[in-house]
Structures are given as C-alpha cells and as structure tokens.
C-alpha cells in the first residue's frame, strides 16, 4: 500500500476553512458568530495511498470530507484534485473533476433511498452523469445494466438481488451496496466517512477486507474517516489526527502508533481499549479531563489548550504551526519547538 510514490499528490488541501454562520433575528437575520467546524487544515493525499483522519465527534472530520467533495461551499482555502481547484473552478469543470471522487457514508440505513431498487441505487451516479452528458457514448442503458451486475458481484452481492429494496438487506450488505454505488463511475479517490462504525465487529472486518482488496485491484486512493483508532491504523498509510477543526499530528500510521508526539494523540491512543485483558489491565491511561470545547469561538492559542496535560504559558496565546519532525511526521505543538 505504501510503495506508491508519486511526485504530484492526487489531492491537495490547502488552508481549508469551513465555518457555518450562527444567525439571530427573525426577519432580519444577522450573523452573530460562526461554528468553526474546520479551521484551516492542509494536507496531501498521494495516489494509491490511504489517508486516515481520526478524531472525536465534533472535531470536523466529516465536514472536512464534505467540503472536499464540495457538498458544502468552503469558506476559504483550496482543494486541488487532479489539477483542478474544486473550490474556484466553474461548476461544469468541478462536476467533471468530481466524477473521479466518490463517497461512502456512515449510516447504511440512511444513505440508501428506501424507494429505490438496488439496481437504481447503484446506477444512479451513472445515470446522473449520463444526463449531464459527461459520460462517453459507450454508456448505453444495456451497458449500465451490465456494469451494475458486475459491480454487485465485485462487492460480494448476488446479482439476482438487483431488483430488491434496501430494507431487504442487512447493515453489512447495505454498506456493500453503498460501496458498489461509489465504484460505479470508476473514481480515482473514495472519500469514506466512517464506513464501518455502524457495523458489527464480524461484519466490520468483512467490509475492511473488501475495501482493502478493492484498493489493490483498482488502484484506488482512500480518504478514510473513523473514530476507531485500531481501524484507522489497520487501513491507513498515513494518519491525520484532528481536534476542534485543526490537524494536530500527521504521520505514517506505523510511526504514529509507535511514536505519538502530540499530547492529544498520546491521550487518544492510551484511551483506546485493547482486546487483551493482560495488556489492558497493566496499561497506564492518560485520562483527559473535560469535554471537547465548543468550536463557536475564535481561538488565539493552541486548540487543545483547555484539556492538555502538558500545557505551557506559551500555548495560551500562540497557535502552534505544523512542524516537520522528519520526512513523514508533522506535529502542531509547542513542545517540539
């Protein structure tokens, strides 16, 4: 997975910000503040790799992915995918580039239309892009039909089920339908927003293996979100740790687990339970106090200041920049200055 070294990254995110306005007033609405869901993040995703984003709920993982996919209009920053800046490109060009970027969603119950058959669901991306005239001539209805069957078999669904409705499938099977839909347009990158967190353990490993196989076979690139550290560690080449809309640490998956630098990463790793009683009981935990603070207010110091066990005076009023520790390891913390 990690030997894909490409000069130009497939996806480049630069200083991406996504603020949601908080409004007040009934008729004359005025903005009284903003939820800073994503507050200036930058990273690259190289072709063939998996970048994992991990963080607690409300840290902006999903918003990041949705801003990249232009499902939200980013407040500022740019998303350069395949040479096109999706944020600033004209709509037609953006749509054309986005054909190569597909999403898998978290909740397999909510992300499939209950009134559509599996065939219609999987063929939907194709029929939408066909209507837009962005597919070439060879995509005839017969071809699409064949493609749907092929996709269903590829993700491990019986193609005889193509006329069934989503409610006839279990959670794991629905997630397979979602994956087939994401693959329909032969994308280059798949943005997977917690694709396994709604699934049971035994089903989760099936889906992770499927994603792993698909990547190898089709040369896919993943941007993979999860809150489960073990899942992220398993699937990712590199991992970004997010907190309150900021990236705290970015590193190769193996390094991050062996040598976490940021106090938040350390706490996160020590909080994740390990399914082995002997190890689990001997472990020293770093228990963070308090909750994730509200992202509504503007911050002038380190975003993790309130909960950090090793905070210093400097952290209160200076935002730490991303500092490169070695070729693959970056961290935003004043401890390493």
């Amino acid at each position, binding site marked *: 997975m990690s030997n894909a070294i490409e000069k130009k990254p497939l996806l480049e995110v630069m200083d991406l910000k996504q603020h949601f306005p908080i409004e007040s007033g009934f008729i004359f609405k005025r903005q009284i503040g903003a939820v800073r869901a994503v507050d200036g993040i930058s990273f690259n995703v190289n072709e063939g790799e998996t970048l994992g984003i991990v963080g*607690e*709920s409300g840290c902006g993982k999903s918003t990041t992915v949705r801003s990249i996919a232009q499902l939200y209009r980013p407040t500022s920053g740019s998303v350069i995918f395949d040479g096109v800046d999706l944020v600033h490109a004209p709509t037609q060009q953006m749509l054309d580039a986005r054909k190569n970027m597909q999403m898998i969603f978290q909740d397999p119950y909510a992300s499939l239309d209950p009134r559509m058959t599996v065939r219609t669901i999987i063929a939907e991306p194709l029929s939408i892009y066909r209507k837009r005239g962005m597919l070439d001539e060879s995509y005839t209805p017969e071809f699409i039909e064949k493609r749907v069957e092929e996709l269903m078999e590829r993700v491990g669904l019986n193609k005889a089920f193509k006329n069934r409705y989503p409610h006839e499938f*279990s*959670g*794991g*099977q629905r997630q397979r339908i979602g994956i087939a839909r994401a693959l329909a347009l032969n994308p280059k990158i798949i943005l997977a927003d917690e694709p396994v967190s709604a699934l*049971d*353990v*035994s*089903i*989760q*490993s*099936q889906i*992770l*293996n499927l994603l*792993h196989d698909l990547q190898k076979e089709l040369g896919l690139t993943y941007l993979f979100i999860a*809150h*489960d*550290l*073990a*899942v992220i*560690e*398993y699937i990712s080449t590199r991992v970004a740790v997010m907190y309150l809309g900021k990236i705290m640490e970015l590193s190769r998956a*193996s390094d991050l*687990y062996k040598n976490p630098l940021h106090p938040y990463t350390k*706490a*996160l*790793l*020590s*909080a*994740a*339970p*390990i*399914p*082995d*009683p*002997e*190890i*689990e*009981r001997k472990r020293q*935990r770093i*228990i*963070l*106090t308090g*909750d*994730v603070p509200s992202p509504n207010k503007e911050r002038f110091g380190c975003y993790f200041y309130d909960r950090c066990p090793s905070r210093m005076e400097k952290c209160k009023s200076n935002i730490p920049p991303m500092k490169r520790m070695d070729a693959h390891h970056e961290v935003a913390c004043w401890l390493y200055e």
Partner: protein
Amino acid sequence: MTNKNSQENYDMLLEVNNLKTYFKTDAGIVKAVDGISFKLGKGETLGIVGESGSGKSVTNLSIMRLIPSPPGKIVDGEVIFEGRDILQLPESALRNIRGNEISMIFQDPMTSLNPFLRISTQMIETIRLHQDISKKDALQKSVDMLKLVGIPAAEERIHNYPHQFSGGMRQRVMIAMALSCEAKILIADEPTTALDVTIQAQILELIQELAKKLDTAVILITHDLGVVAGMCDTVCVMYAGKIVEKAKTEDLYRNPSHPYTYGLIQSVPRLDKAHDGKLYSIEGQPPNVIDLPPCCPFHPRCNKAMDICRNQYPPTKDLGNGHEVACWLFTDEKEQSHE
C-alpha cells in the same frame, strides 16, 4: 457442572436460570433470548458480549421485567435475586427492586433523560421514590452524587436542563442517578457506545471505581471486546439468543474455544500488533432468529461445522475453571482444539 470454584469466590447475588424471552411477530416467534443461565456474585463485573440482535439487551430488560408485553413475553426460566424469583414477584414488590436494588444505565444518554425537567427534579424524584427523605436532603444527596461522578460546580449544574450537558456529562448524570440509591446491581447497557474514546475511558474508569467503592456488582453489556478486556471478571458471549461461551476474562482471551468467540477476537484490528494483509473475518450474516430450527445457530458461518451441528443444538460443556462452551467440538471424546 463439575467445577464450581470460580463462582465460590463471590456471594451469589443474582442467578439467571434458563431464561427464555420470546417476541410474537407477524413473521413468527422471535426467540430473542433462548434459555440462558448465568450467575453474578457480589462485587463482580460480568460482561455480556455479542453483536446486534444477539439478545444482550433483552436479557437485561428481562431481568428487570421491562419487556414490553405484548409482543414480548418471558416464557420460561427464573431470575433469583437474594432468594426471590423476580419473575414471580407482584408489580409492587418489583418497583421496590427496580432502581433501588438493581438499577440501569442505558446506551443513549440523550434519550434517557427527560428534556423538559431540570436534572435536580429528575434526581430528587428518583431518590424520593426509593427513600423516605425530605426534598432538601434528596437535593443534597443528588449534589453529592454529581460530585462523586466528577461533575464540576455540581451545586449550580444540578439546576440545568439535560441539553446544557454534553454527552459524556449526561452519561455521568445517568450513572449518578443509577447509583444514588445504592443499588446492589448496576446494569450498564452499552454505556459508552455513544461516546468518544477519551470520554469512554473516563466513564469506564468511573464505573469501575464507583463499583469498587460502593461494592456494586456490574453487568456490562457491550459489543466492544476491548472494553470487556479491561473491565470484566467474567464474560458471556451471546449469539442468536444463546450463551455460546462463558469464562473468566483471561481464559476467554487466552483460549477462546467456541469458533465464534475465536473469530470475534481475531476479527478486531489491534493497535498493539503489527498487521500485514487481511483481517480474519467471519463470513456470512448473523442468523434471523425467527423460527430457528434446532441446530447450532452459528453453523452456516462456522469453518468447523460438522453434520451434527446442523441437526442439534450442542449441550454446554464445562472445560474447567468455570469455562463453559456450547459447541459440538468439545462434546465428543475427540477433544479437538481449533488452531
């Protein structure tokens, strides 16, 4: 059962024998819990692990007799709590046990508090329902409990509404309420599933600490094998309404005997271990528990399935040290180990 010494370390507090809870639906009878037995000692922490639909929650609702009826019905079995069978008690006596002797924490802290009432109102109500004390004393006690579970500025926060608390804080409030009557048993139904890992660590630590301090026995229902490993003394693994394996936590992880348990433990990605290539995975789907034929419910997914597995449910076999497994692999004279 030949070897009982594992249970004798504890005074027996709760004994569930052959409990069966069925739900009548249009499609047929759902055997959500189908003949399970376990024991819980004083101060013990028992884990019940299983995937969704395996009957974990129904088991515990049955213990409290909270199964909505109809469609649900406890058709057989007994739940012995301090010498009395809960399933035979009149409703009034039951009310005395619920909350007072056995209390519960639910999965979703957002829905288990009343959004219209202040925390103080809800806590005072709970305490005064079970104990004969004045409102003022009850309030004082509530504040003490909130302090105990680590809510800062408890005197002021107690007058807030649930929406003013975060998820982790709400779960702390639930724990405070559950423990405010000094229950002997605390049933925690996926108490941390809705929470983040750092908050999960806080809450689990809290439950463990309080259980020790107040000498409460805990039944922890979860699907997370990591949580069980850290918290529980004994573990029951449930599949399709039955307990397929029961053992001391160390034994279970060191020597998982039922193919399902083995698969479950293997299929979790591990942080502390290097990995290459694929995860172990159990193929197929959990069975539909409607009108299940008399067979091992795991056989279609089992890589060690034999002919007998398709025709008969395996008896429970004791492997020593309280390690029980329901699998045909262990009942023959040929004691196969599965590696």
